């Protein structure tokens, strides 16, 4: 296999090898029900990681995604339970709020020319505080069924798949199509590769960046809804580790943190690798401390592979 293919297919091979290994260690691993479970466990981080991938492709990074997800889920649930807003309007409000937050991130990056790391560090703190104020730091319970509908399951073959897992796969498909088949998608790569060159070749780089941050915000809103569906509550304590969890998924998927290089489906595979290891090591009875250790080793391996394939090509 050529080195440049390694970055594309490496994550998939790693996932398959991990699955084969865990299947050999535990009879319960290779069952449709277990895979359905892993798909539910990674759906929130998986959808957040789509937004994170788009931003990293433009050579940015988003530290605010987890807190924006918590803000969205608390906003949706408080509106629907305490302020008499209809469930549909509450969902629209939540999606609107996280999209707006994404636009604010994008404006600060493009107009005031602040580094994305700093901007999203700021908005991360703002989102966390707003989440606490809005919910008075209490989980919002008794949410209407529409807000948890994505947690419901549908019979597919021999197992039941959550609608949320299907939504995640569909969103990955849409993002893959956008990046591969549209001019806008190619502009995202161009801006990430070399912003100045992209600008000189006539691409409106500010508009590209702004739409990427706005899209990411909308995706975080979808993740908010998925988080509510999974836990059945609006949890103000959620989202505290998701920013780095998504970066982990993106990096494991072979997307370069320097921007301009990467495959969106890699991030889905990256999220699945983390989920498969967490599930598989639990089935083997490995203590959770070692699960954290393994994740760290995998990240370093993934980046090292990326660097090596760069040099080789």
């Amino acid at each position: 296999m050529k080195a440049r293919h390694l970055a594309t297919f490496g994550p998939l091979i790693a996932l398959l090898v991990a699955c084969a290994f865990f299947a050999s260690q535990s009879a319960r691993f290779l069952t449709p029900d277990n895979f359905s479970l892993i798909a539910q466990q990674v759906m929130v981080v998986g959808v957040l990681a789509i937004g994170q991938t788009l931003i990293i492709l433009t050579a940015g990074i988003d530290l605010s995604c987890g807190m924006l997800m918590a803000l969205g889920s608390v906003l949706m649930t408080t509106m629907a339970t305490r302020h008499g807003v209809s469930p549909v309007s509450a969902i629209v409000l939540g999606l609107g709020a996280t999209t707006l937050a994404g636009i604010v991130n994008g404006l600060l990056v493009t107009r005031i020319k602040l580094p994305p790391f700093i901007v999203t560090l700021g908005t991360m703190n703002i989102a966390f505080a707003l989440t606490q104020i809005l919910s008075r730091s209490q989980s919002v319970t008794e949410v209407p069924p529409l807000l948890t509908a994505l947690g419901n399951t549908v019979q597919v073959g021999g197992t039941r798949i959550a609608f949320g897992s299907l939504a995640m796969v569909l969103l990955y498909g849409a993002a893959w199509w956008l990046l591969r088949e549209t001019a806008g998608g190619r502009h995202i790569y161009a801006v990430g590769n070399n912003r100045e060159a992209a600008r000189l070749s006539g691409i409106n780089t500010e508009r590209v960046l702004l739409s990427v941050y706005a899209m990411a915000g909308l995706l975080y809103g979808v993740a908010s809804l998925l988080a509510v569906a999974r836990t059945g509550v609006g949890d103000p304590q959620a989202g505290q580790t998701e920013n780095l969890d998504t970066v982990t998924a993106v990096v494991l998927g072979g997307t370069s943190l320097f921007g301009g290089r990467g495959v969106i489906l890699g991030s889905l595979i990256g999220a699945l690798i983390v989920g498969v290891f967490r599930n598989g090591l639990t089935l083997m009875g490995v203590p959770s401390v070692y699960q954290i250790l393994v994740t760290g080793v995998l990240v370093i391996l993934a980046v090292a592979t990326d660097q090596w394939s760069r040099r080789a090509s």
Partner: protein
Amino acid sequence: MITTQPVPTLKTTLALALLFTVPLAACSKRADEAPIIGIVTKTETNPFFVKMQEGAEQAAAANGVTLLTGGGRSDGDNAGQVAAIENQIAAGAKVILISPSDAKAIVPTITRVREGGVLVIALDSPTDPMEATDGFFGTDNYRAGELIGAYAKARLGEKVPKVVTIDLIPGHPTGAQRHNGFLKGMGLATNERTSNENASPSEVVCMGNSIGDQAKAQTVMENCLQSDPTVNVVYAINEPSAAGAYNALRKAGRDKDVLLVTVDGGCRGVADVAEGHFAATAQQYPLRMAELGVQAAMEFFKSGRKPSGFVDTGVALVAGEPVAGVKSLSAGEAASRCWGTK
């Protein structure tokens, strides 16, 4: 690539300066002559500590003293607590009430401020060693664990225990005390109360960490059910974790035949006991901790007398179905004393 950084004009600089100082100025209005107490909690967002701060605020208002609040960013954030203490002392606080996030790491800071004549009382969990503070008002977490463990053992009867524990994070004193106390109550091999390590006797079939987060606890429970479906007892570090575990059990159709026990006694958790989601919880009294702390501070302002040693603010077993030989409160009785939003 050359980029030009826009130079901030005088106007924007002034505007920004104003933006940051206006809220601060609004916060700093207070009576100058009233004595000052500072309360530093593990976090300012966990409902348990929100309740504790509220209790301290009510008691301070009733006694006409000023209360400053602070806390770490997350459970285990020692640096955040150190900064909060320093800022409160700088603001003139003569008494500090603190729930240490890191029992050992906070000790040098506490020793330093006590040498400066400040009274320091630990609330909810002690420092290590406990003598590093002037007093400790809190729950005996090991005892809380023992209560729910003894209850689970009585409910199991003759059945061989197959236990899942959903813990906090590795090495956390509160987490270890509850976990090991629970195993002690179950009558299983365990560690002593001073240990920060979670014991894992052979009856514990699966362990995982939730960091107290509901979604993470749900993932742990799902994976543990996959690894050993024969589980019949689940211990969860706190009520949000128990809620996550319950979700996983319900989805797997196991909520009726698995005993789920936890610690906190918040209003939400007590309601979960009433609805039969949790078999039992151990109720703590954060309001009482804060009230006693403020009372001790008032005594110190009046007479200079300091409290000493451990004052147990109590912990009570709350169970949906009482068992002979294990004393417990009903969910109804516990609801009148619970903390958090009703």
